[in-house]
């Protein structure tokens, strides 16, 4: 009998469970028997012990990036790191210029931070990606101006999993003296990161996408050549003045351990994930009217974002009740707009409404993949039987030619 436990988790890009090894290490930093001291307490062993653990974790994070530990600033997560990086660099460089360039497919933490800066009088160019989700280098080059001070482009996109050509972007920024920020929340454990090869000045990271706890992240801040950011949170001057606040030893230790494991296990994990992901694609390959969103080559191994035409995403997820996924459908977001990422790719609203994002991870099994294929196929079939659009498609009606009576 199968050992399958439902619901099956297929939403690893949203968050991950904490690895047992990570949780164990974290727990040693909590109670009286553990290392509960304040890492900033320079005067007694409680503080020294906690500080030592923090520095070990810092080293683990730095190693995954090919960075120096002194270049790692602890934050509460990638969102805070994005805020610190973009606002911090924009404000520090305000005398050189007030123009920022980014992509429409960035995470809200970047886009909304840019909107805030616009309110403060900065100018932001939001570039359209190419249809496969990759940066349009011609448009990018044209967008860079003499007064551009910050560029922010994510490494791996959270919705479609595409990987941007960061080294090339970094070179272009370096040539022009522009600070280059990369949101790499989705990267650790999935693809290699080398901040020097990538010509990156600032990089946002978090733990909870790579089997670490939620509520802890980091910002990589380059020392050579020196990159400066204005602090957004003031107080005791922690993290070389860049981010005040008592360091949460247990959280930091968790992130450090998660990053250490990621570095060790990434290669073998990717082989496994690619095999499983390809098995999932294979399971749908004979279906009509399905579209994979985003470039298939420049993509992380564990992501499949797929649109099932003529079926709406929220109803599909409702039908796939034993599988946890996310959708690019409007109904599943708080607003009634479809995924802005899929729209930026040029996907029609219909295909954006019909998309499902499957992201697999460390604990995904072949059995889970097969179950997912079965249940997804059955759901799509059932909903197509219910769909007037499917009927019209079968009758050969071109839906683009129809005049809809929308309300």
């Amino acid at each position, binding site marked *: 009998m199968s050992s399958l436990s439902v619901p099956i988790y297929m939403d690893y890009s949203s968050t991950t469970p904490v690895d047992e090894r990570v949780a164990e290490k974290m727990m040693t930093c909590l109670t009286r028997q553990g290392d509960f001291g304040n890492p900033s307490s320079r005067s007694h062993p409680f503080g020294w012990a906690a500080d030592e653990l923090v520095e070990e974790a810092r080293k683990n994070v730095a190693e995954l990036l090919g960075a120096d530990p002194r270049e790692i600033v602890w934050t509460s997560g990638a969102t805070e790191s994005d805020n610190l990086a973009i606002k911090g660099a924009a404000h520090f460089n305000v005398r050189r210029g007030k123009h920022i360039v980014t992509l429409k497919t960035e995470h809200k933490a970047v886009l909304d931070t840019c909107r805030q800066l616009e309110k403060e009088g900065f100018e932001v160019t939001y570039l359209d990606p190419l249809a496969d989700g990759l940066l349009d280098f011609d448009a990018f080059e044209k967008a860079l101006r003499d007064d551009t001070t910050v560029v922010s482009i994510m490494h791996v996109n959270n919705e479609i999993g595409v990987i941007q050509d960061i080294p090339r972007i970094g070179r272009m920024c370096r040539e022009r003296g522009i600070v280059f920020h990369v949101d790499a929340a989705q990267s650790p454990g999935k693809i290699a990161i080398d901040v020097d090869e990538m010509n990156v000045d600032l990089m946002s990271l978090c733990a909870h996408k790579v089997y670490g706890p939620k509520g802890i992240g980091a910002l990589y801040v380059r020392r050579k050549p020196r990159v400066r950011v204005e602090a957004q949170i003031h107080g005791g001057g922690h993290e070389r003045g860049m981010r005040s606040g008592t360091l949460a030893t247990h959280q930091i230790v968790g992130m450090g351990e998660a990053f250490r494991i990621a570095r060790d296990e990434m290669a073998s994990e990717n082989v496994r994930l690619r095999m499983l992901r390809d098995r999932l694609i294979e399971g749908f390959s004979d279906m009509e009217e399905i579209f994979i969103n985003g470039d298939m080559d420049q993509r992380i191994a564990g992501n499949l974002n797929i649109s099932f035409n003529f079926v709406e995403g929220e109803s599909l997820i409702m039908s796939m009740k034993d599988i946890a996924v996310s959708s690019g459908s409007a109904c599943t977001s708080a607003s009634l707009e479809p995924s802005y990422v899929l729209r930026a790719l040029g996907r029609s609203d219909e295909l954006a*409404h019909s998309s499902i994002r499957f992201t697999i991870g460390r604990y995904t099994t072949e059995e889970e993949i097969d179950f997912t294929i079965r249940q997804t196929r059955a759901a799509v079939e059932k909903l197509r039987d219910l769909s007037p659009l499917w009927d019209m498609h079968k009758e050969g009606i071109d*839906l683009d030619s129809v005049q809809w*009576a929308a309300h």
Partner: protein
Amino acid sequence: MAYSDKVLDHYENPRNVGVLDKDDPNVGTGMVGAPACGDVMRLQIKVNDAGIIEDAKFKTYGCGSAIASSSLVTEMVKGKTLDEVAAIRNKDIAGELALPPVKIHCSVLAEDAIAAAIADIRAKRGETAAEPAVAAAS
């Protein structure tokens, strides 16, 4: 997102899914919504000589609440006259299904679908100058 039991019931066991012959003079067809909005409902009603709706069928592209709203509507209209059915308001549908505020628009669309189906049957019978709800280029 938490769905009410009624919505789940209609979604799992939708009533009256299917098609009626749209060329039948006794059948009124209403299609409302747009794929770009993520909601398209097609409601069809078959009206007998006594003016009573004896059958209704639907097909819907949309979320669980949209499917439930249109399924419920097919139940609500059977056995009623056109005038009685024209009095159905979206809040009746939303209330019966316990739709949350963000899903009220699904019940509004269902109400529009009824109106469109009624307008179509009336136009076929020459009863009013109302235009059919959808002008398909076929």
